């Protein structure tokens, strides 16, 4: 098969041509080829120090731009977000302006307080419900205060608790106005905040009526300390019977009427608010979050009295406007965050790596690349280790052959069983390399990168040092293959890659200005570039 893949983000399809030279393939094969499951595409984008340093050198590019274009950020639907952002901005500009004169000057802070209060209360309620004591408290017969779009601080008694642990619903009997029995179909009014926070209980002005409804957790704003004796099945049956058109005009049953009367009496006895169960003292929830939440809730409730804006005549209208504006603003902020740099998945790793580079003085605090950073830009792999080795002058006491043997640890990645025989100077060099690697590994760990120092040091394997040393001194290939158990192909490949590393070190020596090191690397390169290892390949030309 051959073809042209579609360009990411630009084409919707690609083209594939199946070449059938010896006749068309059979159906099974064709089926697999055309409709089989393709491999899952995964981003192989890795943040390397070399890439970061090269991008920091150039004024025009930023590393975050590069990260944004990688495939791993493909799940962000930036185009759709951008469209929605412009829509929201238009809406925001067409909203009526807020009146914040005089008494309404603290309207915005009032809105924020109310929102925070609502969020705190909701999290407390969730904590209450997840606790064992809370569930016990919300059993049949418990009187609760209901607060949703339809009911405002109305008293209700729990009849049934559903078994579904995830979306627990409570069937409850609630007192309400006559005519207000049906639940408001519009969900939006449920979400709207009540502008004024009060604890005054709802008492019907006209004849008291009741309704049996399924409540969600958010609708129950408080659990009172009172329980009533009720017979849930009779109440529910009676209510459901009267929902049918035939029995609509029947008077309510006895169980319901007594329960309603009880609730009404309770409400009239405590018009300004009824004692509720405190999560900390009564339900014995001792978690830090719960205790702090309760304290914060109390502080917020107290602070609500000090606001002037609730006394203003245009309060409700202005509050509605604030709410509208704030909801648009919140959505806009959320989308702006998603589109911005802060939501890149690789951003934390980028900051960690920058910290490492600053600690090692490759970049200064303003982000300008220093001499060490410029040297590290030339090196393609193991840039930190090699740059540190260069600046620690580890290669100067070694002869060219020995330095080539030492640098073989950067290209050899296998484990060997046979330990190589190494001269003393080489052993010292190896120890120095391990020290530097340990230092870098620990620094990376301190800055937060998820790789232990031991793993970092274990990357550098010295199995081929003897082999390379002997090769650089002129030993024939047949003999050096005897020295180790590594396969011949691996030896050839490693020595070829070693030549690349030596070239990079030569380039680095030119930047630094040390001609001695440069000429040493050139001699080492000449020493290893000979014979079968560097013969041109038969297959490529």
């Amino acid at each position: 098969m051959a073809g042209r893949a579609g360009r990411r983000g630009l084409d919707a399809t690609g083209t594939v041509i199946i070449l059938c030279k010896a006749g068309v393939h059979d159906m099974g094969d064709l089926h697999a080829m055309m409709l089989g499951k393709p491999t899952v595409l995964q981003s192989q984008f890795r943040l390397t120090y070399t890439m970061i340093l090269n991008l920091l050198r150039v004024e025009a590019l930023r590393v975050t731009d590069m990260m944004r274009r990688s495939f791993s950020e493909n799940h962000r639907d930036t185009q759709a977000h951008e469209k929605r952002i412009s829509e929201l901005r238009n809406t925001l500009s067409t909203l009526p302006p807020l009146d914040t004169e005089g008494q309404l000057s603290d309207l915005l802070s009032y809105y924020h307080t109310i929102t925070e209060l609502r969020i705190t209360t909701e999290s407390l309620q969730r904590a209450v419900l997840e606790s064992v004591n809370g569930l016990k408290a919300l059993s049949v017969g418990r009187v609760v205060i209901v607060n949703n779009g339809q009911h405002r601080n109305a008293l209700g008694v729990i009849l049934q608790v559903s078994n579904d642990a995830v979306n627990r619903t409570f069937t409850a009997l609630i007192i309400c106005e006559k005519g207000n029995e049906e639940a408001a179909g519009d969900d939006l009014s449920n979400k709207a905040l009540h502008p004024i926070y009060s604890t005054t209980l709802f008492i019907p002005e006209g004849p008291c009526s009741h309704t049996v409804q399924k409540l969600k957790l958010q609708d129950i704003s408080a659990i009172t300390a009172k329980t009533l004796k009720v017979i849930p099945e009779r109440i529910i049956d009676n209510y459901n019977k009267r929902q049918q058109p035939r029995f609509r005009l029947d008077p309510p049953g006895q169980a319901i009427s007594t329960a309603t009367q009880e609730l009404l009496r309770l409400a009239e006895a405590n018009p300004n608010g009824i004692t509720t169960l405190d999560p900390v003292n009564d339900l014995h929830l001792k978690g830090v979050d719960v205790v702090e939440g309760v304290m914060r809730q109390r502080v917020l409730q107290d602070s609500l009295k000090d606001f002037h804006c609730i006394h203003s005549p245009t309060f409700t209208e202005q509050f509605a406007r604030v709410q509208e504006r704030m909801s648009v603003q919140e959505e806009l902020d959320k989308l702006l965050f998603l589109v911005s740099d802060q939501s890149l998945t690789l951003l934390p790793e980028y900051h960690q790596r920058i910290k490492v580079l600053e600690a090692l003085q490759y970049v200064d605090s303003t982000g300008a690349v220093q001499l060490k950073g410029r040297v590290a830009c030339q090196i393609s792999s193991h840039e930190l280790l090699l740059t540190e080795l260069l600046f620690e002058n580890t290669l100067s006491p070694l002869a060219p052959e020995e330095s080539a043997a030492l640098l073989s640890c950067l290209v050899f990645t296998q484990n060997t069983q046979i330990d190589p025989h190494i001269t003393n100077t080489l052993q010292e060099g190896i120890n120095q390399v391990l020290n530097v690697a340990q230092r870098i590994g620990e620094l990376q760990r301190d800055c937060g990168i998820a790789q232990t120092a031991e793993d970092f040091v274990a990357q550098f394997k010295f199995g081929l040092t003897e082999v390379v040393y002997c090769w650089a001194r002129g030993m024939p290939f047949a003999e050096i293959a005897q020295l180790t158990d590594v396969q011949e192909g691996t030896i050839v490949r490693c020595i070829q890659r070693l030549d690349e590393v030596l070239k990079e070190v030569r380039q680095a020596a030119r930047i630094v200005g040390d001609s001695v090191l440069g000429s040493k690397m050139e001699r080492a390169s000449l020493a290893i570039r000979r014979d079968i290892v560097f013969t041109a390949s038969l297959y490529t030309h």
Partner: protein
Amino acid sequence: MAVEMRLPAVHKHISLAASQSNREDKHLVVPGDVITSDTGFMRGHGTYMDEDRLTASVAGEVERVNKLICVRPLKTRYNGEVGDVVVGRITEVQQKRWKVETNSRLDSVLLLSSVNLPGGELRRRSAQDELAMRDYLQEGDLISAEVQSIFSDGAVSLHTRSLKYGKLGQGVLVLVSPSLVKRQKTHFHNLPCGASMILGNNGYLWLYPTPGQQDEEAGGYYTSMEPVSLSDREVISRLRNCLLALSAHKVLLYDTSVLYCYEASLAHQIKDILKPEIMEEIILETRQRLVELEG
């Protein structure tokens, strides 16, 4: 018309007491000074080995990075680094490249493939493009460019592949030593006093009036020939004199130091800034403010 004339006088050395402490830390050498006799150090630029002793070959400050010792000279030609912003003047138009003079040892090179085509197309440069080279950049034109790479002999290869680089229009060029320009994140500054500045790393500084609105497609091809207002020209002249004052007293040039010097000079007339005593006054004030900023 009264003309002021002066005889040359001894240059008074001004220094601040506060900065004496960090002045001691700087190790200044002249050619032939022995830096160290320790053999454990690598030698970098500006040094040589004289019978086992590391000796300086240029006059400047000794810099030590781990085991590397190099000497950074004060007066030097520009040594290119990849990523630097430079301002240069076209000296030759050759077959597929321009030769640009950038105050370095060898003329820099601007390849035809390293400039943006008008209209922003991406294609291979054809013979037509070669013949049209002179219509874009001629001998004597000033350009701002970025260093793309360095040849093995040290010559610098430039590119203008961004909308902010390209041919420079109306403005003033100031020449200072390359070692006085501080390496920062960005070298294009829009100063609040009403002018813009390009601090080229090669010591060529370009002052120009802040462009009105940014034209998207124009890029490096559009050079405005509209007359510049008198107020803008006064600001630019004052900035030029400030830059000359700063470079005469070897103050490191970056946007903050230039701005402080400009504000200190507002008390004097533009042409007075070049008089030695007024120069010293302004530089003293600038240095004090810079020390306060750090401390």
